[in-house]
């Protein structure tokens, strides 16, 4: 017994240590996932490659804009949320194509492609370093998901080892308007 005691005394703690390491290893999806930076709507949230300052968050039942001279009006079974923001790039020319709203229940609502051709949609623009770009993101979601929303932006959806910015939007309880016109100069 005493001959095996030192061996057992080393094996058991080492096994415990290895088991603890294995249990606490972050999953692969997190290790190769986005590099997260979070902030509030009141501040400019900066990551290494880009930054965002959210200006206004508007809620409406219908949105309307003109596309190639034709008037487009879009209805939804929930509400439209239009977020106007300013984007900045710090290192190189980049698009910010991925915009998601995380609702009150934690569900993710990607920006609406139905309104993808409204004027000023930021995912269609390219941000140059040194030149902040303003525009809007348009989302549609159920009305009860619009409290405690978080806006998540990144260059592409499901970023892998790239920056992702999360901005907690304020609950200022703005009244929802019936109809929101999106003009060339924004909302």
């Amino acid at each position, binding site marked *: 017994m005493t001959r095996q005691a030192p061996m057992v005394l080393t094996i058991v703690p080492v096994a415990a240590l290895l088991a603890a390491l294995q249990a606490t290893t972050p999953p692969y999806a997190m290790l190769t996932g986005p590099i997260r930076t979070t902030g509030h709507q009141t501040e400019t949230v900066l990551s290494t490659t880009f930054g965002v300052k959210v200006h206004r968050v508007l809620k409406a039942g219908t949105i309307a804009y003109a596309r190639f001279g034709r008037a487009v009006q879009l209805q939804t079974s929930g509400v439209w949320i239009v977020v106007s923001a300013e984007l900045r790039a*710090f*290192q*190189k*020319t980049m698009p910010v194509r991925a915009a998601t709203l995380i609702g009150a229940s934690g569900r993710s609502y990607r920006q609406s492609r139905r309104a993808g051709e409204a004027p000023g949609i930021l995912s269609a623009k390219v941000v*140059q*370093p*040194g*030149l902040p770009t303003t525009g809007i993101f348009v989302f549609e979601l159920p009305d009860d998901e619009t409290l405690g929303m978080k806006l998540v932006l990144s260059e592409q959806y499901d970023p892998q080892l790239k920056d992702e910015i999360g901005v907690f939007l304020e609950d200022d309880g703005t009244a929802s308007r019936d109809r929101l016109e999106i003009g060339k100069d924004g909302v």
Partner: protein
Amino acid sequence: MVFDGERKMWWLSLASLPALVAVAVVINAWRNIENYRHRIETDITQGPDHLDYAGATWRLENVRLLGDGRDAKLRLPGQMRLVIVRLVATATRDIGDAWGQCEVSLTDGTGRRWLPLDVSLSNDISRDLDPGREPVSGCGITSLKPPPKDHAALIEEKFVVPAEAVPVLSVKLSTAALRPKAIGFALDLN
């Protein structure tokens, strides 16, 4: 005696284990490292005049700065400026595919990079500035049909940059086969 030899072999194997693991990791990672090196531009030859690169001699032909009203009456809002860079490449040998994935960018001294405008927007701007003339192709399109030996090709790329970066801009060009080597020319805009 046999026991001693065996024990020595055992310790030798144990000691060589970290080295072997390191070698295995490096060999497996070698391809990834090579791929990464082929995407970045670290070895930049800055040229005053002519530079040899990818089977051709390159020179900076023309640079235009638009947006402040001095050139072409085009006025851009705020700090936005349009820089149009033209390069001429004279082929010194048969190029073939050597210009594949060629990238042109503007850099300032601090590491910021501006990539060129996409082809359709660039062509629209060319037609606005010079109606009636065929727009000059960028590097990507020219790399598909490079000039034959001893012939020259004109390449034009457009960039949108902030006015404060204009005095320190230089243009950088690289091709996939020769990256991380790249060539650069200072634009010397005032």
